[in-house]
């Protein structure tokens, strides 16, 4: 019985490691006496205000499903639900956060640019890192977006370029799109959050580590940024009509993968000729999926292995009796296999062992990207693991202005999709297809209720938590299979609700411009003065020139652009709009394409 439980525990850090990595003998032996940076709490929007509520919500025997008491706190009726683990740690080590912000240009000459952020952080070896990320990540992201504010702002009136004020031309110049600037903001914010946790090591109690999954809604687009093994999936449900209007060239540009190709084969129909299909918006970073990166890091920096590990993978586990014989191996970024002669070195522990969710890096950790873990050491060898871990996210995004939706069908939630963001507690026991199906069946059960997305979140958590049987095991309701014993957190975002809000904002921007046009203001000439980049005339791909000298590469002078020009192109973009929904998912992570 004990073994059974143990087997079902899918801890990220190998079960034998103490929850707080032992730092004695290192320079940070005093760590335990340091204070917490943030007092443990559940996400503020849940309003679990007292210790008593906190304690009751962490009841490991019942695992209550917690939803926001006031569902109007989250924007767009977004749903959220969570549930504590069955006892592997005293507290729920997942955290969630959201933030609505406005980017205001210091010149006040641009309309304010609103954005909304959601984040989910799955902590391990303590709750500190996830808690810090939920408190601090959005501040960092905001700074990064403010850094590029000039180039993100919709233009009121660029006025004539003033080359003398712009930075001097560099040896080369590249035009950079707004998308790339937003992706860059996300990427650099991830790196900085990780650096912040490193800085805090001497000031606060060991925070452990966490995965990070972030969604950013800005300028009519949805960006999903992931480091770790939480996962986000866009659940879509489309009529035949809409599907027909997409080209048949499916999945050419989709960020991967096994998951995805399966979903196309197995997409099923529900009653009204509606097809449900999930599109993965992130990919797990585990020792198994990141083998090429980890093995080349190890190969290039053998000292990181301290002579204890070997940066090779073998088709068959090497044994002493095979010494001197030929063995199939691969190393670095090799995709195929080759022969080598087995030596003593090959008998060391491979840097990556195991497969899938059960794979381990240096026999210790099961997730290879995220924040924190700066003091994590490998079981056995005691070598630092952090050099192999990375905070760098994979970013996928979608331009919502290009989504096809037939108004008469009233199927906006299906066409634009419901974005599910969840920690591995959900995905360990329920596959993407089942999640998508559950999303739409639950929504149709509650066609008008304002809390329908909360009901979806609650349903997903209930499904993956399952129920406890007489002998104290958590089992899925519809089978005898083990349910998750991990913390579970689920965010359910109705993407169309954001898009509506965006259209409204765009309309207001236009209105404001009309007003400004009708009363000519001399001030408008100064708008571009403070910018260090200009929007080029190329409206279609929204290119902003970095370090431009006032002339773009084609020798065209920068043209005056209308406000929101970059986003109102829905109608004149018919051709592009017909690209498949999948095609519009763009990934930044080259490794995920393989």
């Amino acid at each position, binding site marked *: 019985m004990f073994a059974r439980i143990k087997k079902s525990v899918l801890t990220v850090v190998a079960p034998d490691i*103490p929850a707080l990595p032992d730092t004695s003998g290192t320079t940070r032996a005093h760590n335990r006496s340091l204070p917490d940076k943030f007092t443990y709490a559940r996400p503020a929007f849940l309003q679990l205000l007292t210790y008593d509520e906190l304690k009751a919500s962490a009841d490991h025997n019942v695992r209550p499903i917690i939803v926001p008491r006031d569902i109007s706190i989250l924007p767009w009726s977004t749903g959220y639900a969570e549930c504590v683990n069955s006892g592997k740690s005293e507290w729920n*080590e997942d955290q969630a956060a959201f933030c609505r912000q406005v980017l205001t240009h210091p010149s006040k000459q641009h309309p304010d640019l609103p954005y909304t952020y959601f984040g989910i952080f799955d902590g391990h070896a303590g709750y500190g890192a996830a808690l810090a990320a939920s408190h601090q990540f959005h501040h960092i992201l905001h700074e990064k977006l403010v850094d590029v504010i000039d180039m993100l702002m919709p233009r009121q009136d660029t006025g004539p370029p003033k080359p003398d004020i712009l930075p001097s031309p560099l040896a080369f110049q590249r035009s950079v799109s707004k998308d790339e600037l937003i992706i860059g903001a996300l990427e650099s914010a991830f790196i900085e959050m990780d650096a912040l946790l490193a800085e805090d090591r001497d000031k606060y109690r060991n925070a452990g580590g966490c995965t990070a999954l972030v969604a950013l809604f800005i300028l009519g687009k949805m960006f999903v940024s992931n480091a770790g093994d939480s996962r986000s999936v866009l659940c879509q449900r489309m009529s035949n009509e809409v599907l027909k209007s997409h080209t048949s060239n499916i999945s050419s540009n989709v960020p991967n993968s096994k998951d995805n190709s399966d979903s196309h084969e197995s997409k099923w129909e529900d009653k009204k000729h509606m097809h449900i299909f999930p599109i993965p918006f992130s990919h797990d970073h585990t020792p198994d999926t990141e083998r090429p990166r980890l093995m080349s890091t190890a190969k290039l920096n053998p000292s990181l292995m301290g002579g204890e590990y070997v940066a090779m993978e073998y088709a068959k586990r090497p044994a002493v009796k095979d010494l001197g014989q030929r063995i199939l191996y691969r190393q670095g970024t090799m995709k195929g296999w080759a022969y080598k002669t087995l030596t003593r070195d090959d008998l060391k522990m491979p840097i990556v062992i195991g497969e899938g969710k059960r794979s381990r890096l240096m026999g210790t950790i099961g997730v290879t990207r995220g924040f924190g873990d700066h003091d994590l050491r490998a079981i056995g060898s005691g070598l630092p693991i952090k050099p192999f871990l990375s905070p760098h996210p994979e970013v996928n995004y979608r331009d919502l202005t290009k989504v096809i939706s037939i108004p008469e069908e009233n199927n906006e939630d299906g066409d634009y999709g419901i974005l599910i963001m969840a920690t591995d507690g959900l995905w360990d026991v329920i596959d993407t297809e089942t999640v998508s199906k559950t999303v739409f069946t639950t929504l149709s059960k509650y066609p008008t209720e304002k809390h329908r997305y909360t009901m979806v979140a609650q349903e997903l958590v209930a499904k993956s938590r399952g129920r406890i049987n007489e002998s104290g095991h958590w089992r899925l309701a519809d089978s005898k299979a083990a349910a998750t014993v991990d913390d579970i957190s689920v965010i359910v975002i109705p993407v169309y609700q954001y898009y509506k809000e965006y259209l409204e904002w765009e309309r207001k921007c236009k209105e404001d411009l009309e007003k400004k046009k009708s009363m000519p203001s001399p001030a408008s000439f100064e708008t571009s003065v403070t910018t260090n980049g200009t929007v080029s005339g190329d409206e279609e791909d929204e290119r902003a020139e970095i370090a431009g000298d006032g002339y773009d590469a084609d020798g065209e002078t920068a043209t005056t652009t209308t406000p929101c020009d970059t986003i109102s192109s829905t109608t004149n973009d018919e051709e592009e709009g017909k690209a498949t929904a999948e095609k519009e998912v763009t990934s930044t992570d080259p490794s995920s394409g393989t």
Partner: protein
Amino acid sequence: MSYAYLFKYIIIGDTGVGKSCLLLQFTDKRFQPVHDLTIGVEFGARMITIDGKQIKLQIWDTAGQEAFRSITRSYYRGAAGALLVYDITRRETFNHLTTWLEDARQHSNSNMVIMLIGNKSDLDSRREVKKEEGEAFAREHGLVFMETSARTAANVEEAFINTAKEIYEKIQEGVFDINNEANGIKIGQQHSPTNPSLPGAGNQGGSTSSGCC
């Protein structure tokens, strides 16, 4: 504050009967006429004294609608007491008591003390269920019965405290196995200093190796 025992309660009954208002009246001594629909579960807590002993009540307020029924069922686990509430001005809430009771009996510990509550006694002019009917139902099913008003606070204290007394008596009689937390009773730490501190302090820290790993 340290306590001798912690009792877990669950409040059940149709939606709109006043479960959330009863909880608020008991924990905060106030009535909030317009209350959000409860989705999922909410928690309340209060310390009471019985027989000179400090007893902490941890109360789980559940959603009454049918849609939440399967999730609510999992919350009976580990409850020592239940308040089964109906609304004296709406007969159908009284008619549904049997279903609620079946649910409770099936999913809870057999020793769970159930208190039947006819709420909204301040609305006597709109009464649809006679007090005698409530009494009869309680007698028939072996429940304790009381009419309350979350608005005027009439009998609210008594309802929660009498339930606790009943549980306390059962403990004295040795009916409850107080060492089994699944019974909804927890013994307080004898030498518990002050507030149960937030996580991190001493042995409460992140590592609970006694769990399953």
